[in-house]
């Protein structure tokens, strides 16, 4: 059984946010409109956190893409009263939308704030409503939604591989964010396969986990920035 994870090379990330757009398009994440977004209702399963270092004019800008860390010890899972938030066998933090009753407890327990509540039924600014992905279900008002590592692509690749009677190859599965990253800052794959690119990068001395001391054991490794630019 694979254990899906990701490595994020902060040296390569230039904060272009192509991953954010790709994530919205792939996962049918509704655009809530300018007013609602200004009220803090925007749902970016993946966001680019922007931090300034130093004092003006001697400042340095750093970016950090933050998405669900798919923790091995996820605080969101035990608190859900209905098992809507649960751990799959291949290590994903799954969210069963149909089982969610909207206590929003998982979002409170999540140290990364990567869970989003649907305050209204989904709607899109035209013509975005014409490009919905048929592989991803829409979420009605009152449920939590979050990054799935594009579970529909993981499933499709697994089905394709078993039809061809072979194993899933490293790099065969690309979540939308990974596929769209122009600088190849994001790498996805099986952490239990020691030869995969993601597990090689995860073992890098540059690697660290986000909020590791909270004890969540995240499956995303951030490779520290080394360039001075």
């Amino acid at each position, binding site marked *: 059984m694979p254990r899906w994870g990701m490595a994020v090379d902060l040296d390569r990330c230039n904060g272009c946010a192509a991953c954010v757009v790709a994530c919205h398009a792939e996962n049918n994440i509704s655009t809530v409109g300018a007013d*609602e977004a200004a*009220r*803090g*209702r*925007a*749902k970016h399963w993946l*966001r680019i*956190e*922007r*931090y300034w270092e130093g004092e003006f004019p001697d400042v340095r800008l750093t970016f950090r893409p*933050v998405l669900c860390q798919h923790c091995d010890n996820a*605080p969101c899972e*035990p*608190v*859900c*009263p*209905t*098992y809507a938030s649960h751990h799959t066998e291949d290590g994903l933090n799954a969210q069963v939308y149909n*089982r*969610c*009753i*909207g*206590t*929003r*407890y998982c*979002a*409170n*327990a999540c*140290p*990364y*704030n990567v869970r*989003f*509540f*649907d*305050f*209204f*039924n989904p709607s899109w600014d035209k013509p975005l409503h014409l490009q919905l992905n048929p592989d991803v279900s829409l979420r*009605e*008002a*009152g*449920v*939590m939604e979050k990054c799935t590592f594009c579970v529909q692509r993981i499933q499709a690749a697994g089905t394709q591989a078993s039809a061809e009677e072979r194993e899933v190859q490293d790099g065969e599965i690309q979540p939308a964010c990974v596929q769209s990253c122009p600088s190849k800052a994001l790498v996805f794959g099986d952490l239990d396969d020691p030869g995969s690119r993601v597990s090689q990068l995860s073992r890098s001395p540059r690697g660290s986990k986000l*909020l590791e001391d*909270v*004890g*969540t054991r995240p499956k995303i490794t951030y490779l520290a920035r080394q360039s001075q630019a």
Partner: protein
Amino acid sequence: MTHPTGSRINNDLLRPLLLTSWRFYVLVAFFGAFVAAGLIAWLSQIFFGFGISGLRWPVYWGFYVTNFVFWIGISHAGTLISAILRLVNAGWRRPVTRCAEVITVFALLIGAMFPLIHLGRPWLAFWLFPYPSERLIWPNFRSPLVWDFFAINTYLTGSILFLFLPMIPDFAVVRDRATGLRRRVYRVLALGWRGTPKQWHRLETAMQIMAIAIIPVAVSVHTIVSFDFSMAPVPMWNTTIFGPYFVAGAIFSGIAGLLIAMAALRKFLHLEEYLHPVHFENLGKLLLVMALLWGYFVFNERLVTYYGNGPAEMAVFRQTQWQSFAPLHWTMVFLNFVLPLTLMGIRKFRTIAGCVIASIGVIVGMWLERFLIIVPALGHKYLPYSYGTYRPEPVEIVITIASFAAMSLLYVLFAKFIPIISIWELKAGEHPPAPDLVPPATEEHRLGDLRL
């Protein structure tokens, strides 16, 4: 000061049941209008979507959860205080116990509504129940919300029994004096009570068992409510002090609620000869003790956080102590500590009016306390990029006001249909060797003579 006896007690305490004044209808209409407004607000939230509330990423819990904790806290007035006073056989408890116990039942009912109101999809709330499902899906027993479900249901069942048992002989009194439909209703409620020695013996035994059993239940309920917060890895939530801190706060706000209810009953039902200044005085001393205990817990929690100086905790700590939530925080400290300490600590101010002012302050202060536990922590959770804040929208304010109106409405209706002071217990208190109904004020005024 006169001691009402025998038929005088019956006449005084049954008067609200048998005679209806226009004031009753005005009060019911007044509170009922607010409750109706609250229902409309909730229905519109379901109809238009949860977005009409002020909740936003990352503060996903706001007024509703504050109200939930607040009302469950208020429910600790009654049953717990009444059970303790019964067990130590404090003579002055007799006119107080029932108006306390009924607060518990109603506050629990109102408090238990808020988890439903706050659900994203409230029509699926039954998924929290461990009902036999053909899909073999059970609720997640690791979730503190499921513990809440069991804790609150246990406490509610126990509190209703605890309230109902001593009402049986009083239902019989009403049955014997009423006519027509009223007689038939109270006959059913009196469960065939005849006042035989065997029945009295069984009632006393049942009351003793309930009084002992309900105390650990009451303590556990608010501990489990505190687990909703302390089990999550959120800065300033994840702390071991929350269990006792919440229980102390609950009893504190509960006593305040009871004092306000007693003052209102005394005034509107003309129970001056039953609810004496000494009752307020004794409960005022309890309020003073709980204010000190509350201050001790807050000091502990804050000092340990400050001394530990963890970056995540300090971000929340700074918000509450001297940044955006500071005005609310220091108002809370004044209302929960300075005000009750001054009014209840100085004997001159420990009058009925003083008790009511202190109690209103404590009610507001304890509501703020729950708000300040929930919102600043959620808004300042670890990553500075995802800091956020929260402002309530009209729907939440209306529902909050409606919950207070619902409490008042239920209380008015209860006092209309059931003797709000236990008639038989009052009569039992007249006969020696039971303590006097009204101990000499000069003796009882000293803290050392508090029969606790």
